[in-house]
């Protein structure tokens, strides 16, 4: 599989503050890749840098083989982005926003109406086309912004916190949308601070904290990296304590040493990995 995004040693500073501190990763063609990290980790900054909107201080980024420093116009053609703050013109209707995106991306005039209708139809947005964006609920606003981002059929779709602040129903609606777009051949790079979202959607995940990638791999690889079996128990001072083991046998051996303390042997989850690698073992 080819890499569609290659980032090496990326550093982004705001004045004295280093928001992204030397991260490297690849996004492979056809996959759903996720950045999982807490608030302020540097997810938005990274994604905005990749889209060429945000300047960076050092490192290199290439999109589809185009270096974004020198060849940004070519790189931009491959990208669609739905930003964390929904970037639609809220004075206009959904249809007008879609049309404007199509016009800006130079879709031939004769095809615009057809492309807009078709895209909206696939994504079941038909009934909302003539609503002003301002009056849509959060989930539909988000959906409309994703549809704008794909109108020019980008090879890679960047989604910055696509489901932050949405109710469960809207979240499932967007998950389905993301899976469908991916199944139709779009590579997806999303950021999230919801562990279950990364677990449910992503082929590969990078966990980012304080501007650094602390670990990355498939969800299984990440579990294996700390131990796929977890013994969940309490420590002497009554706090929650987790120990990780490569198999059930070693986990049971450890459990026997706990005496009469209560414990639970279970599969390791991505949440365990997250807490382990972000140095927050006691739980959030």
């Amino acid at each position, binding site marked *: 599989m080819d890499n569609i995004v290659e980032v090496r040693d990326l550093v982004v500073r705001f004045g004295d503050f280093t928001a992204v501190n030397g991260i490297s990763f690849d996004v492979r063609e056809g996959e759903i890749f996720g950045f999982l990290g807490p608030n302020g980790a540097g997810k938005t900054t990274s994604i905005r840098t990749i*889209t*060429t*909107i*945000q*300047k960076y201080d050092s490192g290199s980024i290439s999109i589809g083989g185009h270096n974004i420093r020198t060849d940004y*116009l070519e790189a*931009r*053609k491959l*990208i669609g*982005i739905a*930003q964390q*703050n*929904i*970037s*639609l*013109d*809220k*004075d*206009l209707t959904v249809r*007008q*926003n879609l*049309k*404007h*995106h199509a*016009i*800006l*991306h*130079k879709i031939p005039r004769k095809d615009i109406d057809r492309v807009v209708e078709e895209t909206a139809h696939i994504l079941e947005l038909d009934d909302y086309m003539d609503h002003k964006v301002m009056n849509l609920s959060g989930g539909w606003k988000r959906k409309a912004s994703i549809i704008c981002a794909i109108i020019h059929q980008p090879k890679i779709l960047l989604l910055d916190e696509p489901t932050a602040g949405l109710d469960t129903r809207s979240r499932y609606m967007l998950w389905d949308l993301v899976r469908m777009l991916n199944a139709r051949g779009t590579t997806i790079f999303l950021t999230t601070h919801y562990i279950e979202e990364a677990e449910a959607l992503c082929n590969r995940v990078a966990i980012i904290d304080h501007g650094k990638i602390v670990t990355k791999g498939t969800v299984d690889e990440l579990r294996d990296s700390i131990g796929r079996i977890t013994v969940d128990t309490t420590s002497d001072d009554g706090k929650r304590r987790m120990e990780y083991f490569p198999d059930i046998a070693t986990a049971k051996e450890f459990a026997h040493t706990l005496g009469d303390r209560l414990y639970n042997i279970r599969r390791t989850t991505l949440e365990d990995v997250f807490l382990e690698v972000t140095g927050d073992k006691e739980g959030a």
Partner: protein
Amino acid sequence: MGILDETFRVAWGDLVYMKGNMIEVLLSSLVGPLLYLLAFGFGVGGNMEDPAAYVKYIIPGIIALTTLSATFSTVSMKILVQRLFYMSFDELLLCPIHISAIILGKLVQGVARALISCTILLVVGWLLSPQVVISPWIFVLIIVASMMFSLLGLLAGMLTNKTQTLTLFSSIVIIPMTFLCGTLFDSSTLPDGISFIIYCLPLTHVSNLMRGLMLPEYSIGLDSIVIVAIYVAVLFSICYYMIKNNKC
């Protein structure tokens, strides 16, 4: 004509909005100038020896000030909102569109508003005072002047991060400029220091040129043409630099 084509691609959204809100556009850009015409032309001018001459004098001035009042506040506010609240300005940077076209495209709504309202004022002015000369050059001047003030609006909208700052800038720079720059009275009668500042302001030259075009007894100053051209070039370059370097 790649740039021109791209310009209209950028302007499309703003023009659609204008088309859907024509009444609001007309009210917001015409009520002010028409009130000035009424208050100054008939109120103040009514007490003068030759009221008709004063009305004739202020018609070009009011058209000149409309190229400012119909553009600056709308363009600056729209840019600020699109940048900070709608986040849709970013989106333009991601389209396969030249920076020049982004700038020009963002001026189109200002120019369109100015053209519509100035044309209506021209008709009103001509009805009130048929001696005024109406030539195609007037429209050229309206376009250039409204581009200049829209550029100023674009720049203000990119530099400020609060609506209050814009309102403040409007009331300490734009509103005084509206009245003082030879629009409603001859600013050369003001004290020396002040009249020099006034001479440096762009609206002064728009009113001078407008008067030169519309009233046979006034001439067209070459200095005014040069100063307007410099303003346009400098404002455009600053906007270009800011967008190019992600400074907005």
